[in-house]
């Protein structure tokens, strides 16, 4: 590349723009995990007996499990006894209006460029902001209630809609699924519950902004979205986290259930703290996300922009059970510094004529390591199933890594499955062309990378596309320009 070393150096040293800590008093449990901690979490949240039983069942199973080691990620062993499993802001405001919310908290969102009140008016986006573990602000509840949509925190749902939670929670990601899902099932702090009744097209985009803010507090979010027959919903999830020294564990579970003719679109912008230039202190992001297309013609779409976290381990998946069901996965993953990402998807085709599309774009810079790991399985009964997978990797710098591990298992001859992957650096020809037309090195690289990711950005809802581009620009500023 034609850039001088010094300009690259100065860009690389750009710090983590979102790194600041908000001082809010928290009610935090001391570090450690045993059955009593789970009982405390459950009682603090006024949970019914059945929920406690579920947690304990998951915890007992978790004790018998081993941490997975197959992913292409390296990190020091996690001491699960050194983590505090519950934290909630002490001043718990009533949720009647934004005025009741702690002003300091609101200011945090201002700094992040997520003004709740403005967003409310501007985009018609309802925001359920999760500050650490407890929901403290919920907007547009009434509009949604009119449509019959339930949009609330998980703890509220457990109290208010126990029959729905009991029916669906753990039905897509059972507690035995994997090590981190079991841990989450035992200690999940809070999360979001969305229920779209039959035939309802959710009147607005639903959005949750996460923010980890309590030093040494694990964040164990639990999200459940149920879309009944013929309903539609688009859900946005985004997050930023302040700079700190201790590694933080984030083990979320997201479950989506789409019934016949239902459509769920789930978009994520993930920008947890990635650690310093030596890789110290970043977030460990071990997430289990899975969608179940239970009916005919149901449709689940995952879109993710992953720019943060020290370690990402995440495979948003679709089980295409219904005939003519559709699964989609669009992903941009950026790793720079010492960041490591092992991410991808699973498309399990069981229904006839089920279709899936996978578009994965990985960008590795500096010493970043980026892995695509995906599974496409066509079961014997899935007649005329169709999959197309495209995963491309872009390398910036001679010390980064990009790996591609697709698994394709086909048991039906009528299936049509295609997988393509490429790995290369930003082409000299393209750079030369841009420079020749008067663009600076930085603008040229930025433009080429934006073009590289365009297919994925196009899938993001308007509100998010802007933030995603901004995030990518910030991330790349640190790496190339």
């Amino acid at each position, binding site marked *: 590349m034609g850039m001088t070393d010094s300009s690259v150096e100065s860009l690389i040293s750009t710090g983590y723009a979102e790194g600041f800590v908000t001082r809010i008093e928290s009610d935090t449990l001391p570090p450690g995990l045993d059955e009593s901690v789970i009982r405390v979490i459950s009682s603090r949240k006024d949970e019914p007996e059945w929920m406690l039983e579920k947690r304990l069942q998951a915890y007992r199973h978790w004790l018998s499990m081993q941490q997975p080691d*197959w992913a292409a990620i390296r990190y020091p062993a996690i001491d699960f006894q050194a983590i505090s499993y519950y934290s909630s802001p002490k001043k718990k405001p009533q949720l009647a209006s934004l005025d009741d919310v702690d002003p300091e908290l609101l200011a945090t969102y201002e700094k992040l460029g997520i003004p709740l009140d403005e967003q409310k008016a501007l985009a018609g986006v309802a925001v359920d902001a999760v500050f650490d573990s407890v929901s403290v602000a919920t907007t547009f509840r009434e509009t949604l209630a009119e449509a019959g949509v339930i949009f609330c925190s998980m703890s509220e749902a457990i109290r208010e809609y126990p029959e729905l939670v009991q029916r669906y929670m753990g039905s897509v990601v059972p507690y035995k699924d994997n090590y981190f899902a079991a841990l989450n099932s035992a200690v999940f702090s809070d999360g979001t519950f969305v229920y779209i009744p039959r035939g309802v097209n959710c009147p607005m985009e639903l959005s949750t902004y996460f923010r980890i803010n309590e030093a040494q507090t694990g964040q164990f979010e639990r999200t459940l979205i149920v879309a009944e027959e013929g309903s539609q919903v688009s859900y946005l999830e985004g997050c930023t986290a302040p700079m700190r020294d201790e590694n933080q564990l984030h083990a979320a579970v997201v479950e989506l259930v789409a019934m016949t003719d239902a459509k769920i679109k789930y978009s994520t912008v993930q920008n947890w703290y990635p650690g310093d230039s030596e890789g110290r202190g970043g977030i460990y992001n071990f997430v289990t996300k899975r969608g179940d297309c239970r009916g005919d013609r149901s449709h689940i779409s995952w879109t993710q922009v992953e720019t943060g976290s020290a370690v990402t381990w995440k495979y948003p998946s679709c089980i295409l059970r219904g005939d003519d069901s559709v699964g989609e996965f669009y992903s941009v993953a950026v790793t720079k510094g010492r960041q490591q990402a092992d991410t991808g998807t699973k498309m399990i085709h069981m229904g006839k004529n089920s279709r899936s599309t996978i578009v994965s774009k990985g960008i590795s810079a500096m010493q970043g390591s980026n892995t695509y790991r995906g599974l496409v399985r*066509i079961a*014997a009964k899935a007649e005329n199933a169709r999959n197309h997978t495209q995963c491309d*990797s872009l*390398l*910036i*710098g*001679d*010390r*980064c*890594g*990009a*790996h*591609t*591990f*697709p*698994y*394709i*298992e*086909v*048991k*039906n*001859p*009528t*299936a*049509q*499955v*295609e*997988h*393509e*992957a*490429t*790995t*290369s*650096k930003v082409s000299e020809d393209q750079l030369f062309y841009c420079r020749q037309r008067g663009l600076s090195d930085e603008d040229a690289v930025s433009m080429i990378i934006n073009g590289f990711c365009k297919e994925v950005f196009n899938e993001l809802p308007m509100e998010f596309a802007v933030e995603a581009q901004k995030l990518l620009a910030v991330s790349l500023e640190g790496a190339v320009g």
Partner: protein
Amino acid sequence: MNMHGYQETAQRTIDSLAHDNGDWLIEKRRAAMERMSELGFPHARQEAWRYTGVESLLQKGFISTPSVLDSSREIAIDRMLEGPVAGRLVFVDGIYHPGLSIGIEQTGFRIGNLRAAMATGDQSVLSSVGNLSGVGDHAFTAMNMATQQDGAVIQLSKGVVIELPIELLHITTGKRSGHAQQIRHLVELDADASVSLVERYLSADGDNDYFNNIVCEINLAEGATLTHQRVQQESNHAYHLCGLYVNLGRDARYLGVNAALGGAWSRTEFHHRFSGEGAECEIDGLYVAGDGQLTDFHLDVDHGVPRCRSQENFKGILHGVGRAVFDGLIRVGIDSQKSEAHLHNANLMLSTKAEIDTKPQLVILADDVQCSHGTSVGRLDEQALFYLRSRGIDAHQARRLLCLGFAGEIIDKFATDSLREEIRNDLEQRMRF
């Protein structure tokens, strides 16, 4: 048979060989036998063996006793390659058959067999055994090292260029049912040497069940070129495991084309290492799996140095209750700039009972590279079938033509005319066209 049983058998083999051949390889054999239990037999929890079980192979309990050459037996000479050859090494039941072979030993050029070298303690051969493969990474390769019986030795000195192909023919007779054959080939090409090798595995009758455990070490020095045509036509009850270890020096070239048609269970592992800049390797392959067959191809191409190029193209046809596994790993090391690697795998599924598990992999640690892989699984194109039928070709013929067309891209890579013919005929016979 369990590990203990295999080790005991190996021990007996080593003892009897020591008695026959002196001590030339005994240390390597003993060390490998020790390592067998440490390495263990592969199992489904190992990533490289995820889709390929070895249970049936172990249940069969094939015994690797040293086979004795039955020279009185007439072997089907008509299976030999048509046309002139530079040399021919025929192995009957894993043992070199001098009566059917054309060996050559002259300055700068040797076509011989391993057993002869072991008998005389020829260090120019024996010192190379295991240099590239080591004891391998599972018990079967270690077993081969411990109990290897015979195999080809091909050595070319600097600048020796041989135009005519060298034929390596393996025939297993009914006598070896229930037995394992431990075969090891050694190919060494010094700088700028060049040769073409035709390697084939046949069975004298179709119901023969045996286990061919093969390790092939190929060392290509600076500027050397090897053209390697390999055809596996074992019996439909045979087990066939082959590990190829290829080292490519600066500007060396390896051009390999493979066809796997037979075997109840067959697996070929390619371990290609680039050790000098500017080297090139091209590996093509065709696999066909029908009722009761499992065919597995594993590639591990390691770009450990800059400016090397590799290209892999594998095609598979699955019919009946056939299963195939393809695993294509390309690794580009941390300083291997200007590497170029492209891998392609296409699969044609013709029946509802067939299964394909394919896994191309890229592990890239350098940035200035051009790497890609592509995989596809599909059935015959309905439109193409319709087109042919509209031209008066019946459905059966149309399918046959399309399958042969699909396989043709690989078959045409075989440079030897009679081999292309043979593969086409065998393919048609196995697919009952």
